[in-house]
């Protein structure tokens, strides 16, 4: 049962992810991304990581995809005709298909992840208290670095998007 559920949700996620790439309309692509994220959240639920599933839905599906949609609407990009990949040389196509095929075959024949010892894996994604405790102790430094990362992103956006007024006064 668990395997069946995993397979169904994984397939759903992958199909939605392919939809993001092939959709020519940016709004449809964003909505496919939303579906794909819902699928990933489903996978987390399957792993009993309810907190992560909830956060994923809240932050990514809720906030970030909504932001994507806003920006798509603001930019008003139509799904224009765009150059297709048809001009790819035949040799490159054969090579790519061959490489992907070889990868698949080698996965199917030899690719086995070591069976995880579930007792050793800490269940951090299930409980808010455990999760928060880890964030403020073991992962304190990554959280700090992430804070500075966002600060740089903010400075960069402000500087790069500010209206250009000419440089006569500072020459």
């Amino acid at each position, binding site marked *: 049962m668990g395997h069946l559920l995993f397979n169904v949700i994984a397939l759903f996620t992958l199909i939605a992810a392919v939809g993001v790439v092939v959709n020519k309309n940016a709004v449809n692509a964003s909505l496919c991304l939303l579906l794909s994220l819902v699928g990933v959240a489903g996978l987390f639920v399957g792993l009993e990581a309810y907190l992560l599933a909830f956060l994923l839905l809240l932050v990514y599906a809720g906030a970030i995809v909504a932001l994507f949609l806003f920006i798509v609407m603001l930019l008003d990009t139509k799904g224009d005709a765009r150059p297709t990949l048809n001009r790819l040389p035949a040799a490159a196509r054969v090579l790519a298909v061959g490489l992907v095929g070889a*990868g698949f075959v*080698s*996965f199917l024949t*030899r*690719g*086995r*992840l*070591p069976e*995880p010892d579930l007792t*050793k*894996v800490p269940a951090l994604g299930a409980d808010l208290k455990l999760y928060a405790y880890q964030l403020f*102790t*073991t*992962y*304190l*430094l*990554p959280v700090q*670095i*992430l804070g*500075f*990362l966002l*600060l*740089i*992103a903010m*400075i*960069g956006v*402000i*500087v*790069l998007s*500010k209206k*250009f007024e000419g*440089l006569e*006064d*500072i*020459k």
Partner: protein
Amino acid sequence: MKPNYTELFAALSPEAALIVGALLVVVLDLTLGRKKIAEARWHAAVRIALLAVGLAGCFTFASGRPGAEFGGAFMLDALAQATRYSVLVLAALSLALLPGTARMRHPAEFVAVVLFATAGFSVMATAQNLLIAFLALELASLSLYVLAGFDKTRPESAEAALKYFLFGGVSAAFLLFGFSLLYGLTGSIELNVIARELGAQAASPLLVVALVMVLVAFGFKAAAVPFHLWAPDVYQGAPAPAAALIASASKVAGFTFFARLLWSGTGASSGQAPAWMLTLAILAGASLLLGNVAALAQRNLRRLLAYSAIAHAGIMLLGVMTGTRFGPGALLYYTFTYGLATVGTFGVIAIIERAGRCQDLDDLAGLYRRSPLLAGCLLMFVLSLAGIPPLAGFFGKFLLFSQALRLTGLTGPAGWLAIAAIALSAVALYYYLIVLKRAFVTPAVAGTEARIAVPLKPALALLLAAALLLALGVFPSSALRLVT
């Protein structure tokens, strides 16, 4: 495990100094600098930043207790410390170039982002944990994307930033895929645990996929063929001080980071040649060939430097291969001296740009008459890049090639690569000498003969870089002792 925050702070005090410096620069500029003219704001920002970098250097010296820190998340070994010093020196030189060169708005933001990037490089040098390593890499990369697009008077700058960002984003995605596979294979994000687990497992195709993904990101960071396409556009479009940082400190930190990952994380703990050796050899060979040959065709000085950087990346990849047996000394020596020469060259470009244009090789014409100081410094830097004794570039190449020949003999991949690299060095000499010919022999075009004024700080930075190149070339063993 109960983490010890005092120890953590002591180990990371250089990065803390850099970040506090960055915040101070922005805050002081927004409060005290509002009414000042731009020139004064540049000088003030650079002064604070240089102070922060100097302080970080002192803290690095003080935090020297070697060993793993914070539950194995960091490693303060000789390689980490030497990389930290190198990164700080290169960042300080790039910063010192700023006041004489920049005609951009937002001085404080530029300087602050440089400091953030330096902090990122410094964490990259010490990280022993995939999560922190990735975050540090992104801290540095994000800063560099912003810096590349800082010059809003030129559309090339925006183009450079966009290309760099798109390539960088994709390579970061590859790196994350690779890391998640490594985590899946070993159940840990700590490098020493990963090494132990991988040593105990049989080779699996998943490990190969993970390594390929990591190598894609490495190839991007190092600008190795076939992941080099961003380099010429970024070198051409980015403001010169930003290009100097991208070409120097970012390279040093990137090579330390990825070499550590490959050596200790996924290296040959069982004693055989690691699985990534052959792939790396192919990347190195392709970079050497394409970089050197494409540089011959360039008429744009910055694009020429970019292709020469691709060729140098090939040699550095050779250094990653030899480092498995001979230690990191030669690789770090090479990347650092290469960084010094590149910062210097971009510094000369930046100062010439202040007086006019400096994109094409022809813009160098008559440099010897226009500014003997700049021409002399350019001579040192370019000859070091070409590998002429007694400059440091020669000794770096000599050390790496001799190690490569000893690694597998003449017939192994490293030996072949070393021979190819020696042959292609002759090709490289040709295009480096063309640069020097323009600067020293070709007379200036009418209308551009005016002398170039060189401000004090950039002049000191150039002279310091040239002196370091000479000193490291004459006394290489004292520098190598720091690393080993």
